[in-house]
């Protein structure tokens, strides 16, 4: 992944929290464009119609050059610096932009392609991914391999010119509406757990693939099981070397712009909405509600500052490393805390969902609360993150 690793100020040794003229111009351009274009009231992405609306928005983003700002221009990006990326994300969520249905491609698969893919793969795959022409689902989890990703049991068997894949993937977000899936399959059944895995790209319209959607906690049809029965995948759809799938996947999960270094924009925007909610509801808010709101706002600030520190570090050439586990713990708990504060403030009105005439903010808080509850579970449960912090950052012994 090519990145303009230094913002203008980063060469200077001192702390400097001013934005450069270039950064300010970038942010202003992003804000102005998003202000004019962010769609209001998109339907949930868990239906064919809803998904199509989200895809249309993604294409609009791409056409204007905002889909993948940190990518090289050759693939549809803007060569944006780390800081510019943060500024874009901040502007995106500040403007009320919807969740990105392209994210399992651009945040999870793309880093693997940048690091481990071939030039041919990058040329063939990246631009359609960014343009939301090819929609990507993740095929990482299996019924028996959730937190324990190395327990993958789906298999791939070598055949002439490619591989034959069989097994079941699950919790594959939006797979019902996607064109392709990336995931790990076991190519060497005799190798130990983390070995013998290979990273494949699987067309979801290939013969032998069956996708069966199911609903997440809030009732949206956002998950799917993907059943594979002797599905052919050509050699050019293997990322990295056969048997190196774990390494490729870890480069993805460790990707600073992937799920691990969550841009604070989403949470800072939620904190801002929470403050606005408090200001509207202050007549009925108790001093405890007030304290919960300010605590959540403060946690969002701390998270934002923590990521700025990480970005500075990584822009200076350091690896993200295990501090990504603190990052994951922080954003996922913060998201719960933000919504907890809102629900407490709403009291008996908190339970009203979208469609209820008296739902405050259209039921967004109880919806967001349910969404937030996934945070401590996915992308490595927070229990696993705490183990990583204890073992890799503090040096405690493994169990």
């Amino acid at each position, binding site marked *: 992944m090519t990145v303009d690793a230094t913002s203008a100020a980063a060469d200077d040794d001192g702390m400097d929290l001013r934005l450069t003229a270039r950064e300010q111009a970038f942010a202003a351009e992003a804000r102005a464009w998003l202000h004019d274009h962010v769609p209001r009231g998109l339907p949930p992405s868990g239906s064919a119609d809803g998904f199509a609306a989200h895809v249309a928005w993604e294409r609009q983003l791409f056409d204007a050059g905002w889909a993948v700002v940190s990518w090289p221009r050759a693939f549809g990006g803007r060569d944006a610096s780390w800081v510019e990326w943060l500024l874009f994300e901040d502007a995106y969520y500040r403007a009320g932009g919807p969740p990105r249905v392209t994210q399992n491609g651009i945040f999870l698969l793309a880093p693997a392609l940048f690091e481990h893919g071939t030039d041919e793969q990058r040329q063939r795959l990246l631009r359609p991914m960014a343009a939301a022409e090819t929609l990507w689902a993740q095929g990482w989890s299996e019924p028996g391999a959730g937190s324990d990703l190395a327990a993958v049991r789906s298999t791939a068997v070598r055949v002439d010119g490619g591989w034959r894949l069989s097994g079941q993937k699950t919790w594959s977000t939006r797979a019902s509406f996607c064109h392709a899936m990336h995931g790990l399959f076991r190519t060497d059944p005799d190798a130990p757990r983390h070995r013998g895995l290979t990273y494949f790209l699987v067309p979801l319209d290939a013969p032998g693939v069956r996708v069966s959607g199911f609903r997440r906690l809030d009732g949206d049809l956002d998950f799917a099981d993907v059943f594979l029965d002797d599905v052919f995948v050509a050699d050019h759809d293997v990322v990295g070397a056969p048997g190196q799938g774990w390494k490729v996947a870890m480069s993805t999960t460790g990707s600073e712009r992937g799920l691990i270094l969550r841009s604070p924009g989403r949470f800072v925007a939620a904190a801002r909405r929470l403050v606005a909610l408090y200001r509207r509801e202050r007549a009925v808010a108790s001093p405890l509600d007030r304290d919960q709101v300010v605590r959540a706002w403060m946690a969002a600030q701390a998270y934002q500052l923590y990521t700025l520190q990480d970005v500075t570090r990584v822009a200076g050439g350091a690896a993200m490393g295990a501090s990504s586990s603190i990052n994951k713990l922080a954003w996922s708990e913060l998201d719960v805390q933000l919504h907890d504060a809102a629900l407490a403030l709403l009291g*008996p009105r908190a339970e*009203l969902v979208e469609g209820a005439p*008296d739902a405050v903010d259209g039921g967004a808080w*109880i919806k967001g609360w349910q969404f937030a509850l996934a945070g*401590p579970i*996915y992308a490595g449960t927070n229990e696993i993150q705490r183990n990583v912090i204890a073992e890799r950052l503090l040096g405690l012994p493994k169990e």
Partner: protein
Amino acid sequence: MRFAFSLEQQALRDAVRDLLGRACPPAVVRAAWGADDDAAPALWPQLARMGVVGMTAPERWGGLGLGELELVGVLEEAGHAALPAPLLETTAVAIPLLAALPDGPVVDGVRDRWLGAAAAGRAVIAVGLAGAPFVADAARAALLLLERDGELHAVPRDAARLTAEASVDGARRLAWVDWTPSAATRVATGDVARDAAARALDRGAVAAAAELCGLGRRMIELTVDHVQVRHQFGRAIGSFQAVKHHLADAHAALELARPCVARAAYALAHDEPGTAVHASLAKAHAGDAARRAGRAALQCHGAIGYSFEHDLHLFMKRAWALAAAWGDAAWHRARIATAVLDHDAAPGAFHA
């Protein structure tokens, strides 16, 4: 001093548990999510035949004349089953409220028309106190007991205009109720109305607390089952300390809430002066404990529990809703603070 339920109370509870265990599996709860707003509550006839619906009604209205000590065990089982039926509103609150009002032409008429019907399961009665923005189960009620401006009114459902409000718990049916008080609906005023409404709030809070204990218990049971079967890293995940400690803390919180519910039921049954504080103690602890159990349950289930198809959410969403209804934990803590800190009126553990 004996702080335990009687054998008869336990037997009644066991009977309800048996019935609900057979007749109210999660599929029944799930079916209620798709039902019409005015559909009859699931299992209402069976519960009425068993005497449960009318258990709090005086015998002259066909009830069993039982009190809160019998009721809270039954309600805990209703919570455990996430029973999609208005036992809380009709049996725990409305019937005792109506039964206790002083005689008078309007009250007598309302009782004659509705109390026996309610006790027999033929008429649901819903309740809307002044502090609650919405009325649960209004659409399937025949009668609404409503508080406004310090008065209590008994309003036939047909005389009110309802606006449905969708809840995160799809088995829960809320409505905003638009109605016009009149002399014909007025069943209490002044101190009588104030006292009756206050007692109704306490009854509702304790009943919700009992259901929350049952909901929390059920979520822990589901999780204990899951973590013994689910293996990751070559071990049942229930053998990891992190999972154990999540569940142990949640279980302990519930076990500490349950005696508070029993104590509040006793206070209600004996009309003790400190009843409001006991009721608030029960509701705040049970609400917090059930919410905590829900968090622990979801986290220990992992992605498997984060699905609409899994049963966990049926219980979790009911717990969220009930924790916020009938006064949330913060509201009840504030009420206790007023009594204990401002008025130095802390009730004791023993019968005052």
